[in-house]
């Protein structure tokens, strides 16, 4: 059993009085009571800016003459559409069409791609990518420990980060990246990506303690005028849930396929073969047995991960993958797998909470969509 890992910013979080929690083998801040806690952090991201240490995420670089072919083989989205500096959400699939992991694919160079992967699947993903790209003329490197990754999220994120960089952030569209000097550090990858449903950026700085600490502190200082708060995994989860962003092990897993998870638009079946394609073709022909829906609690109660979903007769028809209060929407929401006959908006269902069926309805997702800039 391996020891819990820590990011370079661990002592900084502790010094700020953060409540620390174990997450997929990592000791991470769940919330910062001195900043106000989960609800305050969540709402700061929706209305101003929040800063997250997401260094526990992993990074795999593929570089070489056949790097694109390698990515195309293991990733379900179409990486050939990526211009230099562009990124896309995708997933690595098992031959059964189920998920190894979800991933953001960045095209960093002519023949250079970066896969940003989940913390809990770092080792599994690296082994998977390495083992399934041997046939391509391409180097596969695990860069997960090379970066301190900081996410700056919220409507004020761009104004905040612009104070720290010479890169022209207004020219960087959502799901694009650039390189620039950040906090005096040259050639830093700046990506307009995130996991909150808001505008925002993720910066990748060297992982040494001194640099990590300095960039974190300078980011918080630069954000003071915008009311920036440090944000932990607690608000990270409530934010992504409101935005209906999947979490590995919950909405997606090695037992769930792409169609069930509703991630069709990121899966380009028209690509020549990729891992999982054949199984997905077959599954599509057979039809869905279950599908992911959004639920809103109608009666008093909070649906939580794993709780059974019942039909009105009280029969168990599915389960909650993720459930929580939604701090910005001020409702209790959940994502759940149910059979296709229950997916119509407004369908009345129940969630079993401590032995009682509590009324919920199927609602449209994402639960929250950020307002379009005028």
């Amino acid at each position: 059993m391996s020891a819990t890992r820590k990011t370079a910013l661990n002592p900084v979080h502790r010094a700020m009085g953060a409540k620390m929690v174990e997450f997929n083998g990592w000791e991470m801040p769940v919330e910062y009571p001195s900043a106000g806690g989960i609800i305050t952090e969540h709402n700061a991201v929706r209305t101003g800016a929040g800063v997250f240490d997401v260094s526990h995420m992993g990074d795999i670089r593929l570089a070489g003459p056949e790097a694109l072919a390698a990515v195309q083989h293991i990733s379900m989205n179409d990486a050939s559409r990526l211009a230099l500096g562009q990124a896309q959400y995708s997933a690595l699939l098992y031959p059964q069409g189920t998920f190894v992991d979800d991933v953001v694919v960045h095209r960093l160079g002519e023949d250079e791609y970066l896969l940003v992967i989940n913390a809990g699947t770092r080792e599994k993903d690296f082994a998977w990518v390495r083992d399934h790209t041997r046939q391509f003329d391409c180097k596969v490197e695990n860069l997960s420990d090379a970066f301190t990754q900081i996410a700056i999220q919220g409507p004020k994120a761009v104004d905040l980060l612009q104070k720290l960089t010479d890169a022209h952030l207004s020219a960087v569209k959502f799901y694009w990246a650039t390189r620039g000097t950040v906090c005096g550090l040259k050639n830093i990858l700046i990506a307009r990506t995130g996991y909150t449903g808001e505008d925002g950026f993720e910066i990748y700085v060297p992982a040494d303690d001194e640099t990590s600490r300095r960039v974190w502190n300078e980011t918080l200082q630069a954000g003071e005028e915008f009311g920036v708060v440090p944000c932990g995994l607690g608000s990270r989860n409530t934010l992504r849930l409101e935005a209906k962003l999947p979490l590995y092990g919950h909405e997606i897993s090695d037992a769930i396929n792409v169609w069930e998870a509703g991630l069709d638009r990121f899966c380009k079946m028209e690509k020549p073969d990729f891992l999982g394609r054949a199984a997905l073709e077959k599954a599509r022909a057979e039809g869905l047995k279950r599908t992911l829906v959004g639920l809103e609690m109608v009666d008093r109660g909070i649906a939580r991960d794993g709780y059974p979903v019942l039909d009105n007769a009280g029969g168990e028809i599915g389960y909650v993958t993720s459930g929580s209060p939604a701090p910005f929407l001020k409702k209790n929401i959940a994502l759940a797998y149910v059979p296709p006959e229950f997916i119509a908006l407004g369908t009345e269902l129940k969630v079993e909470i401590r032995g009682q069926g509590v009324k919920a309805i199927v609602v449209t997702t994402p639960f929250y969509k950020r307002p379009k800039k005028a």
Partner: protein
Amino acid sequence: MPYPTDYKYTKEHEWIKVDGKNATIGITHHAQEALGDIVFVDLPKIGSEIHSGKAFGSVESVKAVSDLFAPVSGTVTALNGDLATAPEKINKDAHSAWMIKIALEDPAELNSLLSPDDYEKFVAEEG
């Protein structure tokens, strides 16, 4: 945080204030701090019985559900209605945001509870 001297405490972080044959129960300041923002409280019905050491309800933060454990046995005589709509009152002042009032079944059970000093020591050791 000074713990009220006329309350007694449990290792599960409940407090109890005795008033003759009746008592008022809530959770401590330490408990609310550990929980974070409280968003939901689930209390038993008036007239139901609670049993010493057994769960009688639950309190929920954004992230988690925590059982409430009965410090002593008794019958529920009143509920704090505020907590249904404003559970955050517990975060604001845990020692006055009471949860239930009960008629005591066996006042002798009070003897095994912690004094304010013992509770403070217990919290400090728990770390």
